[in-house]
Every structure is written in C-alpha cells, then in structure tokens.
C-alpha cells in the first residue's frame, strides 16, 4: 500500500470516527441527564423498607443534585488558519443527608428524626467565630 492510499483511507474514516465520538458524547449527556432527573423522584428520598424484629423501618434523606455542562465549537477565518474544532465538558454532584427514619410497629407509626451533631457543632463554632471577630472589630473601632 502506497503513502497516498494510506492518506486517503485515514481521510475517509475520520468523519465516521467524529460521528461515533459525537454520538457517544450525546449518549453520555443523555444518561447523565436521566440520572439527574431521577433525583426528583420519591424513591431518591425514601429508601427501601427494612423489616427487623417486628418493625418496619423506612429511611428518609434529603437529596440535592447539581449539574452543568457546556459545548462549543469554532473555526479559523483567515487564509492561514482554516482549522476547526469543537469540545465540551461538564460536571455534577449529588449530596444526600439522612433526615429521619419512619418506624412502624405494634405501637403505631412514628417519625424519628436523625440529628447530625457534627453539622450542628460546625455551625455553632462558625457562628461563634464570626461574632467574636465582629465584636473585636467593634472594640478596636471604639
């Protein structure tokens, strides 16, 4: 096979590769979007029921999902720079925090809250630090 034949083959397959890459990227975006939208479902908040020693336990959590992505393309307009290109990127994060546990037993159905003491201590210390620094600034400015 000559060098010119090799060049022709690679030129012929390049658009197909680009199409395959673009469709794969679109599929990934669609999957991510579907997963993101599934966060709004009730099943994302309430877990599977657990039966334990005559109790029915149903965990409940708060779920926050953030997602963003972008795509762009461009091409050279001058005679020397005729190249073109495109690209994209994105990211997202899902946070989940237990809020309560619903317990059903012989006594009835009860909602038992889940308290995150670490978060409470962090909030208290941050607030205290903020007040102390503001108070010190007030004293200096007097």
């Amino acid at each position, binding site marked *: 096979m000559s060098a010119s034949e090799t060049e022709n083959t690679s030129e012929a397959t390049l658009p197909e590769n680009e199409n395959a890459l673009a469709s794969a990227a679109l599929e990934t975006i669609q999957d991510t979007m579907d997963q*993101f*939208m599934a*966060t*709004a*479902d*009730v*099943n*994302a*908040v*309430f877990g599977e*029921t657990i039966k334990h020693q005559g109790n*029915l336990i*149903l965990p*409940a*959590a*708060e*779920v*926050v*999902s*953030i*997602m*963003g*992505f*972008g795509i762009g393309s461009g091409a050279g307009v001058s005679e020397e720079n005729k190249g073109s290109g495109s690209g994209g990127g*994105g990211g997202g994060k899902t946070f989940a*925090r237990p*809020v*309560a546990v*619903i317990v*059903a037993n*012989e006594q*009835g*159905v*009860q*909602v038992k*809250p*889940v*308290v*995150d003491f670490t*978060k*409470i201590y962090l*909030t*208290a210390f941050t*607030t*205290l630090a*903020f*007040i102390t620094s*503001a*108070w010190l600034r*007030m*004293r200096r400015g*007097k």
Partner: protein
Amino acid sequence: MTLQNTNRPPVKWRGYQISPVAQAFRFVPSAQFGIIWNRPVGVQVQTPQGETQFLPVHDLTRIIQVIIILSGLFLLFLLKLIYKRS
C-alpha cells in the same frame, strides 16, 4: 422553576398503609444547567381502623442550624446597639 409533590405507592404493614410523600424543587434554567432539591415531607398513614393521618418529617438538624445562626445574628445586633450607645 417548579415545586412538585410525589407519592410512593403505600406500603402495607400489620393493617397500616404507609405512603411516603416527597417534595422536589427543580431549577433548570437551561439545558446545560440544573439544580434539584428533593426532601421528605411526611408520611400518609391509614390505620387499621380506617383513620387517615399525616405525619410530617421535620429536618431537626436544619432547624437547629437556623436557630444557631439567627441567635448569632441577634447577638451581633445587640452588641452593635450597646457599642453605639456607649
């Protein structure tokens, strides 16, 4: 921007029918960006006697956090008042 309540089909347990309710807040301003905040609202309970009651789910951690922050701001406001007068 939408606020939507969603129910799960009831779970049957010893004559009780428990149906969880969640509330989803969606903010999707464009196809490229979005936020979804989904939280439990409560459970709809139907007793074996046929009575229906709604048990709310309170986020105790968040309530305590808000109380701490508001108390801090109030304290700061009081300190400012004291320093202004003196």
